[in-house]
């Protein structure tokens, strides 16, 4: 019998041997996997500058002999933990920024407590962020502050910037930030106002449980969790693969609850009425129009983002009022844009070259 075209018969014994070795390794490493914890995440040295309920402000200790004049405040998404930007040495965005000479602060969130269910959008935009900016100013001794917002942290940063048009924000960078919520098709359907009774939900549960947030993310790609577990088993002999899997899996499932009133506003004003896109958004009675943001602006979007599709983010740069503005589309997904091996090669150097010259 002839071998099929392209099949190298001589390599078969070698291949069988390699697969047998991997099968043995899978059994050994499989036991190890369940008996050990994953890598320690978010370990770049930092100080807690301030903490109030769900909000924490960190200052990361400089790693450079000389730093840029303007400090950077990172505003994390309220659904997830900030350590996605500080995974492990060599794969930490924070560490990268510190080594490139930035003075880095992060506004991170913990699970809102039951009594924080009444936190509103204005508490985030008109209290938490301005409070952190003031503390960054006091701690750094500088009036100017650059802001980086990731995902919904980007939406909060946009609202903050649009309302506080006289400063002190000096530069604004958004990563994968949606503004046209009609284009988040599945989320939009999940929260269809004809069937989704947000008042009943919030009035019943107070804070929206993390399981519900996680399920809605996972429903966007329902087969992916099972497939990723198959891939883990196939690659469990590969320490680097397992390390990366554990880091991202831990973060992705470490979802935060959302404060009830805040979730109500997101649903009604953004998902239902698309107010940010329509320039009708009010926060605490103050108009938030994107055209009022006049500072240098960079928006990084991911080519294969399934959480924030490009359609939901593509009008942002056009609507910003600044003359100095840029959108950059990079390969990757919603998370791999900002963390992991792709981000190290793509987003981080781009951000450094853009922000460095605007940080003196």
């Amino acid at each position, binding site marked *: 019998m002839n071998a099929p075209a392209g099949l190298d018969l001589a390599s078969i014994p070698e291949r069988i041997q390699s697969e047998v070795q991997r099968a043995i390794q899978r059994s050994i490493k499989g036991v190890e996997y369940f008996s050990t914890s994953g890598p320690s995440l978010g370990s770049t040295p930092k100080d807690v500058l*301030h*903490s109030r309920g769900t909000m924490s402000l960190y*200052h990361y200790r400089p790693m450079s*002999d000389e*730093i840029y004049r303007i400090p950077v405040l990172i505003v994390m998404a309220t659904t997830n933990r900030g350590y996605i930007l500080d995974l492990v040495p060599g794969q930490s965005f924070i560490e990268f920024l510190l080594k490139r000479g930035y003075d880095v602060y992060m506004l991170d969130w913990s699970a809102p407590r039951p*009594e924080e269910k009444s936190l509103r959008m204005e508490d985030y935009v008109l209290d938490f962020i301005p409070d952190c900016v003031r503390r960054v100013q006091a701690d750094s001794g500088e009036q100017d502050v650059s802001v980086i917002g990731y995902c919904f942290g980007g939406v909060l940063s946009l609202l903050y910037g649009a309302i506080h048009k006289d400063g002190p924000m000096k530069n604004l960078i958004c990563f994968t930030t949606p503004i046209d919520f009609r284009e988040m098709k*599945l989320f939009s359907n999940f929260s269809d106002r004809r069937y989704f009774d947000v008042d009943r939900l919030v009035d019943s549960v107070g804070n929206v*449980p993390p399981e519900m947030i996680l399920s809605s993310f996972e429903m966007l790609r*329902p*087969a992916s969790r099972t497939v990723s577990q198959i891939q883990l088993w196939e690659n469990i002999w590969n320490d680097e693969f397992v390390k990366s899997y554990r880091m991202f899996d831990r973060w992705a499932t470490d979802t935060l609850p959302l404060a009830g009133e805040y979730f109500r506003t997101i649903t009604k004003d953004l998902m239902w009425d698309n107010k940010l896109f329509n320039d009708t958004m009010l926060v605490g009675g103050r108009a938030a129009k994107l055209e009022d943001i006049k500072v240098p602006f960079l928006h990084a979007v991911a080519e294969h983002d399934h959480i924030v599709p490009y359609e939901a983010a593509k009008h942002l740069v056009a609507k910003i009022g600044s003359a100095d503005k840029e959108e950059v589309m990079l390969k990757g997904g919603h998370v791999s844009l900002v963390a992991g091996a792709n981000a190290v090669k793509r987003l981080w150097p781009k951000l450094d070259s853009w922000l460095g010259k605007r940080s003196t």
Partner: protein
Amino acid sequence: MTDKTNDPVAMWQKMVGEMEKGFNSFANQAMSSPEFSQAMNRAGGVAAGAQKQLGELMEKYLVTMNLPSREQVTGLAERLQSVEAQIGEIKSMLSQMAANSGLSQGFDGTPRPPRTRRPPAENGDPT
């Protein structure tokens, strides 16, 4: 080198990848319908109602068992939070005092580097 088209492992991986894409795409289409939204939210509404009732029942059970209620635990957490906040404020004041006295240093007491960094020149050399 073995041709990927005849490599069983590569074929398996490709098949899993294709199945994932196919299933996700099929499910996304199904989930885009109003009927899906209606069914999902009906189920979600029932779950939320049940969760509320269960919470109230648990509260009564804890009182019967002479265990601290959520309100009492929350009260303790609030007091702890307030102590933490005050420590934070004291640290912040100390840092501010250090800054006012001309010492540029962080919380850990180490001096802060000068804010004099310039971006690298276009050719890659620091300016």
